[in-house]
């Protein structure tokens, strides 16, 4: 009997073919060891099943949702899920990952599935219903045209309030490249996934899961969780010191997301205000108060609207503000609001610096009540329309095209209808029309919708290619994506990891460490232990490239990919630092491996898991090489250095009066940047000149099929070193600080 139990993995992936109506399930056992789950499964399936040259709206494109062995297994912060599909908005429309939290991943897992492959195309609106083992394709005609809120409600009315609905809104139905899939009100899977589902006429995925995840050593999962929560984990982004001076804390840092403090309340809580207070390490029952996100994101005025915090399934860090605002209810019809990322500050963080709307901040720089209203109205609108923002690019682009006269020039008479004058005068209501028109994708009648295609398209339409090289754009790669913690995050380290995917990277391993709040000298010491001497520089005081920085960049990438496979939240994991002074603030890098072993029963080290992360990254690199067009427009290209990993110009030209690598700037230097690419390629075992995976590297990672494919296409080079010969060893690297770790004491 015991042999038949699958620990960690549910063991099955559902396949729904919308063209034929066929629904099947297949075992994922063969992929488990090498690809783990989540991003690994989804990318493996995309590589094997979607050939190069397929366009995102073709019937041959697929949308693959997957979770991993740790999802929903009781491990802290294991509530995320990953989709893979073809990009709708970046050059060559290559494979991208669309991560989301909320309840979707856990519910899918509990339904008995590690994944869902959506393939083919329906000719009429449908939704996919997964009710444990029963999977069906249902008619969604009545839902077409509706927002994500109404869609969710209608489906819960029909199937019960315990189902999780992941839905597209009008943006996805209209095939707008910037469309996403929303679950749990405000958790979005982006990168154009909404448009891909729209092209397949899939309005929603509805999941009920009542099964259990088998866990090999449930006591160890509980013990490791308790240990982690007691002394290792901090707040959101694993910030480990409070943002204000508190009696218990040796350090504080005003940028920290450990924002709880005495006198700061969830002021709109049911039954009266609840004080966030001073939650300390070793207090598992106050952990969820550490991150007071509404006032952190929306400013001090948001306190009175704050009901509580929430977040993804299974996570003790509650990073999602839950706020209600009477004017938002009046203007949008929706009362409940709140997010943890861009939709919490679309206006104040990304538009205001260009638009300079009077009344947004007080004289001393604090955000005002007006700012709260501006941010929340945009949030309410985009999440209901299922409109994605390309990590805030949409907002920067709206602001830029407005303030620099591009919209006025391109929209003609329509420009006046968008009410920018009202927006400038303190009324955010016109954003509803602006965003709704963008979501309409009616570029003929409402050309403002071009902004929803991304800069790749609209800068060409509106003759604004120079926007890429303007530091205000924050565009970091000419293939169409913006920074996601780039050169401002450890210089070359951040720059490098912004290059590797086909969208913004969503890597937080490094930026978590940067913002954790510990003093720089201590961080340098910790960096030396983990990645080597010289890996960590002080902010805006960067030094030229070195091997330790390449190690840090590699680690940032493989940990992120690993987390998206397992699935763990890389917005807090990995545990590189801790709030507990008694452990000298050191984290515990072995925890992923120990949880993996406790859940699955399979012994692994963290180095084994990093290798798996590297395998999945390298697999995606192979996908990209197959489909990427070269400078002559021919498909199939391995010159990543000159075609794919091309950073925009502004990192080299900003701060014209300051030299690179001097205090006060994060400016980069061109020759040094090329050295940085070479070092990163070498660390991955890729071709040091081209940045493509080599034969040796692929064979060592067990990717011989991919090596053959690339060879056939003439894209395979020799060289590269085996994983074991080029890696630092991370196994037990922080062990001397981890005396209380239950797995070490087992």
């Amino acid at each position, binding site marked *: 009997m015991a042999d038949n139990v699958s620990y960690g993995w549910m063991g099955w992936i559902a396949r729904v073919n919308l063209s034929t109506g066929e629904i099947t399930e297949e075992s994922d056992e063969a992929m488990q060891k090498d690809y783990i789950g989540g991003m690994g499964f989804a990318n493996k399936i995309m590589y094997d099943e979607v050939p190069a040259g397929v366009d995102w709206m073709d019937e041959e494109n697929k949308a693959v949702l997957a979770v991993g062995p740790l999802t*929903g297994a009781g491990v802290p912060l294991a509530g995320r899920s990953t989709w893979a599909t073809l990009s709708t908005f970046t050059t060559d429309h290559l494979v991208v990952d669309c991560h989301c939290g909320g309840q979707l991943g856990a519910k899918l897992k509990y339904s008995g599935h590690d994944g869902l492959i959506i393939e083919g195309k329906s000719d009429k609106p449908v939704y996919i219903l997964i009710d444990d083992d029963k999977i069906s394709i249902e008619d969604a005609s009545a839902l077409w045209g509706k927002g994500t809120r109404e869609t969710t409600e209608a489906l819960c009315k029909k199937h019960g309030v315990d189902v999780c609905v992941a839905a597209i809104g009008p943006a996805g139905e209209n095939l707008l490249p910037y469309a996403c899939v929303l679950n749990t009100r405000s958790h979005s899977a982006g990168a154009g996934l909404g448009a891909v589902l729209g092209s397949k006429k899939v309005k929603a995925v509805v999941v009920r899961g009542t099964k259990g995840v088998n866990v090999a050593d449930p006591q160890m999962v509980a013990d490791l969780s308790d240990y982690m929560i007691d002394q290792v984990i901090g707040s959101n982004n694993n910030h480990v010191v409070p943002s204000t001076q508190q009696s218990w804390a040796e350090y504080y840092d005003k940028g920290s997301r450990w924002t709880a403090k005495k006198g700061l309340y969830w002021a709109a809580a049911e039954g009266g205000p609840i004080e966030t207070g001073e939650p300390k390490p070793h207090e598992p029952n106050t952990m969820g108060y550490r991150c007071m996100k509404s006032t952190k994101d929306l400013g001090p005025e948001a306190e009175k609207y704050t009901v509580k915090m929430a977040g993804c399934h299974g996570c003790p860090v509650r990073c999602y503000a839950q706020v209600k605002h009477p004017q938002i209810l009046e203007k949008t019809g929706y009362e409940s609001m709140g997010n943890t990322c861009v939709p919490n500050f679309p206006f104040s963080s990304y538009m205001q610096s260009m638009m300079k709307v009077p009344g947004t901040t007080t004289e001393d720089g604090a955000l005002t009540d007006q700012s709260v209203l501006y941010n929340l109205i945009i949030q309410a609108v985009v999440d209901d329309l299922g409109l994605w923002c390309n990590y805030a690019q949409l907002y920067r682009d709206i602001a830029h095209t407005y303030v620099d006269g591009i919209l006025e020039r391109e929209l003609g008479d329509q420009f006046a209808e968008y009410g920018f004058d009202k927006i400038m005068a303190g009324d955010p209501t016109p954003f509803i029309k602006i965003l709704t028109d963008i979501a309409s994708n009616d570029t003929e009648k409402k050309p403002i919708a071009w902004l929803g295609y991304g800069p790749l398209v609209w800068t060409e339409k509106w003759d604004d290619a120079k926007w890429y090289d303007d530091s205000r754009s924050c565009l970091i790669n000419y293939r169409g994506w913006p920074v996601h913690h780039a050169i401002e995050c450890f210089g070359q380290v951040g720059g490098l990891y912004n290059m590797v995917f086909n969208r913004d990277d969503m890597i937080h391993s490094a930026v978590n460490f940067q913002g954790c709040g510990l003093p720089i000298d201590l961080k340098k010491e910790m960096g030396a232990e983990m990645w080597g001497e010289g890996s960590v520089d002080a902010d805006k005081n960067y030094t030229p490239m070195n091997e330790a920085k390449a190690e840090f960049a590699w680690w940032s990438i493989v940990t992120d990919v690993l987390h998206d496979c397992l699935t763990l939240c890389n917005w807090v994991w990995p545990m590189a630092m801790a709030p507990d002074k008694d452990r000298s603030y050191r984290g515990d890098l072995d925890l992923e491996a120990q949880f993996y072993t406790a859940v699955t029963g399979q012994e692994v080290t963290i180095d084994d898991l990093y290798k798996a992360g590297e395998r999945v990254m390298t697999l995606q690199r192979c996908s990209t090489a197959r489909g990427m067009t070269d400078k002559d427009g021919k498909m199939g290209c391995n010159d990543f250095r000159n075609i794919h990993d091309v950073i925009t110009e502004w990192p080299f030209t900003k701060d014209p009066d300051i030299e690179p690598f001097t205090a006060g700037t994060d400016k980069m230097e061109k020759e040094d940047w090329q050295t940085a690419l070479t070092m990163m390629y070498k660390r991955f075992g890729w071709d040091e000149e081209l940045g493509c995976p080599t034969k040796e590297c692929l064979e060592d990672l067990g990717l011989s099929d991919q090596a053959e494919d690339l060879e056939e296409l003439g894209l395979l080079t020799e060289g590269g070193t085996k994983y074991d010969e080029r890696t630092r060893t991370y196994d037990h690297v922080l062990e001397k600080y981890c005396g209380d770790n239950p797995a070490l004491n087992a």
Partner: protein
Amino acid sequence: MKENTALEQVGSGADRLDSFFTRRGFVKVSSAFIASMVGLGLLPDSAVAAPTSSKGKVDYYATPSHVLKVNRAKCTGCQRCEMSCTLLNDGKSQPAAARIHVNDGFFYGSELGSGDGIYYSMEWNIRTCHMCTTALCQTACPHGAIITNDNGVREVDPEKCVGCGTCVAACPWHMPVVNTETGKSAKCIACGRCAEQCPNGALELVEWENVNHASGPTRQENPLPLVSEQQDFVGGGKIA
């Protein structure tokens, strides 16, 4: 005998037990009576061995030792309680079989239109076992599968349980769950693991008290009208 119409309806005789074993007091009954209760599974084995007082009477406190108290305003909806519960009690992570319920009230509260849930008031419906002194789940079970353990807490004996769901129906709060995988019912045993790791201290395992009215409202007094009855998408389409 105190009045309790809910119990009268059940007609199981539990109402009479209730008058003997109130939360306030010790009662004095004969050891033979205790033994017969033990025999029926309505009292734990330890009851027979409980110290006797003078005159051959037994002092026995039949109320459950502990109960969970919830402050739903503090609950941030992580559902770690459900996973922790089942990891400890079932050896796997299975929220749908947990002895505390958050996930099914998370989106829309107790029901659509309650005005609760993450889509409305941002208060969700949390259900925990009330640890009734007279447990209808127990008295209703046709197989005598719900026994009283040494702490006075009712517990499902999986050997006897046939998964008929009578306990679920009998409980005024439908707290027991028939596990879809094992086909056995389970209910809260006051182990406290959920409260131990609640990141917001929204759950507390306290010495028994009547919590029937302590776990907060189950709907808004004036719930907002349903979005699906108001508008297709944001702004009601009026502005766009």
